[in-house]
């Protein structure tokens, strides 16, 4: 049996890097006394699977972690034991039991919705959204392992709109072959708006989706 854990990583915890988050979760699970399965081998460890690592600084409203278990346990018992063991700034929102054959969340991930919030009015940037979306191709420089590469992110933008003057929301492709991070989209939007100076903003991943825009946690 495996447990899908939906948790929030926001406020000050957004500054915690992915490796540190994994260690934090491992320690919380140890404290919880839950029957987590360990790997075999010389140095046994917990095999936690995260749907997608978040960049340092980005918040996540409904992040997903898969925990393999060595014993059956009810969702309610699991949730209360884990909640008690987590720091209050890192709450467990929901859990869902699935069987061992359930595909890993990462393999089903297709898209993610983000919210981008500014401390000040972002009108000039927001005004550029329709112009950007009208383009057939949006070429941006993307950092890869082998250096920088020009790529077209237009097909990776599923949705982009302003919620109000300080708040943009978007849905972007996120899968092995085509991932567009919100920072990359903002590069394109700033270029479109012709703005050299950046305004400070906070990124939050609101939801992750699988095939046909079904929330990943329900798949």
């Amino acid at each position, binding site marked *: 049996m495996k447990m899908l854990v939906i948790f929030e990583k926001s406020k000050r915890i957004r*500054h915690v*890097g992915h490796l540190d988050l994994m260690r934090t979760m491992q320690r919380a699970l140890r404290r919880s006394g839950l029957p987590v399965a360990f790997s075999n081998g010389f140095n046994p460890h917990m095999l936690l699977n995260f749907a997608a690592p978040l960049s340092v600084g980005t918040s996540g409203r409904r992040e997903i972690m898969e925990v393999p278990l060595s014993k059956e346990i009810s969702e309610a018992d699991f949730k209360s034991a884990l909640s008690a063991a987590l*720091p209050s700034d890192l709450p467990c929102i929901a859990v869902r039991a699935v069987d061992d054959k359930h595909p890993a969340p990462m393999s089903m991930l297709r898209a993610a919705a983000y919210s981008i919030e500014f401390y000040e009015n972002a009108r000039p940037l927001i005004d550029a959204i329709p112009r950007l979306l009208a383009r057939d191709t949006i070429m941006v420089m993307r950092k890869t392992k082998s250096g920088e590469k020009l790529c077209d992110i237009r097909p990776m933008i599923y949705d982009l709109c302003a919620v109000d003057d300080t708040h943009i929301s978007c849905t972007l492709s996120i899968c092995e072959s085509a991932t567009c991070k919100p920072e990359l989209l903002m590069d394109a939007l700033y270029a479109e708006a012709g703005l050299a100076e950046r305004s400070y903003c906070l990124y939050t991943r609101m939801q992750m989706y699988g095939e046909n825009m079904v929330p990943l946690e329900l798949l």
Partner: protein
Amino acid sequence: MKELSTERLDRLLDSVLKPSRYIGGEMNAVSKPFDQAELTFAFCFPDSYEVGMSHLGIKILYDIINKQPWALCERAFMPWPDMADGLRRENLPLFSLESRQPLSRFDIIGFTLQYEMCYTNILEMLDLADIPVYSADRKDGPIIMAGGPCAYNPEPLAPFIDVFQIGDGEDMMVEAISCVRDCKAAGKSRLETLRALAGIEGIYVPAFYEASYNEDGTLASFAPTDPCAPSVVRRCVVTDLDHASYPSAFIVPYTEAIHDRIVLEIMRGCTRGCRFCQAGMLYRPVRERSVETLLRQAEELENATGYEEISLSSLSSGDYTHLTELVTALIERYKDKKVSVSLPSMRLDSIVKQSLEETQKIRKSGLTLAPEAGTQRLRDVINKGVTEDDLIRAVKDAFETGWSTVKLYFMIGLPTETEEDLAGIGVLARDVINTYFSVPKSVRAKGLRVTCSASTFVPKAFTPFQWQGQDEYDTIIKKQKDLADILHQVKGVNFNWHEPELSMLEACFARGDRRMADVLYQAWKTGCRMDAWSEYLRFDLWLDAFKACGLDPAFYANRMRGEKELLPWDFIDAGVTKAYLWCEWQRALKGETTPDCRNGCQGCGMQRFEGVCSK
């Protein structure tokens, strides 16, 4: 007063290295409402978060203060330079991690003094907190306290710190914060509060004392100027360690601290009497915790932290009376939970083979041994009661039980050292390697790794070597080079050494007087901070600072002191008397050893403290 703006702080945190150092909110961190506490205490560690969170003292005192229902203790660490500059640029004050309060809003700011080369960070942190660095310039705002091993020679920090705590902090801390709470409630002035504090045993308020100097620069007199201040400040001693307060939960950092694990303080103090070792003199006598208490603490901490490792801490864990029993019990209890047990700072003459075999069931880390000197003659001078046979037996045991990594620690520049002593280090290293190859291939583990580390000897206050001059810079450099040549000829040894610049500055502060405060201020003003991190050490600025203040580093570091000289820390009664230390110094020069007083009192002075030494 500078205000914390969320927006500017968010932006700053998104721009610095490792922002998780500054976020707080870790598992087991306190969250008490700041405004409801009768007394607020900001525990400041003058080094990075990773270093500070590895330190046991902060865990103990944080827990003790927060156990008082009326008090609140939060933490702050020295921001990494990028963050420090960012705070200044954004006009943000240094803040506490838990509730993000500017430090200037606390009633007390307490620094722990673990290492002299963190002193510039204290000035930097005060300045970042918008607090005047000189006590005399502070009319209101927090009272600045400091404690820890370096407080035994507090003088180089005297003009900056309002109150020093000398000795074990457990009981004294509660007394001190209660006193400040009462003064605050009674609306007493800052001066009245300091006077009240000066009356507590173990507390030194430098503003109430005056120093004068002879023409040759040595101290002429040192005396209190206020009737509330005792002429001798006596160290505080926790007599019953087994019942002393210990946290049942540790804060679990998000980002990895240097030592990120459960620590059990199995005992405090060491009476082997190594003559270079300040801790061995300052923490007398030996006080042990019972196995029962330690097992209970291990269980509480394991449940509260989820740590994967338990480490035993003390000055010489091998001397703990019930070591085998404790280690066996810990391993038995935790092997199914995949928690490992490690034994650091092991004395090489007391390694119990049985414990070794037990620990390696879980994990084999490297074996660390500290012969300190290369020949028996010099080991007798420093009273390191370890023979070459002990060492070889210990590494043989280790190799036979499957260990293959050995680290050997040495010091260069010890009193009476000769070329022969340096050559002896090479001989020891070679013997360790030969011992490995004498163990049958089928038994020993593959991949022998022998590392020799040589640090520069720094004479410290309250040791028998407090009268000794440190080797001059050029001499140290030459000895390091000679030793490197010697070890180069031993196949399979790695050699590390420490930067001599840092050891020299350390020596100046370790035995400095009040005038060293001027050098400290000047160095900080011209940009020195994070001196313990080699990438930030600006030795040139330090030398300039000495010059600007008209002081000679050699006066503090390299000068031999005489028996009659008034030493800047003589007004502190650390337990061990000056007469005993002088006697030990004379014995050292004659190469005479002094046995561990566990087998018979040597009359070091601790017998004057009630209920401390039963002998």
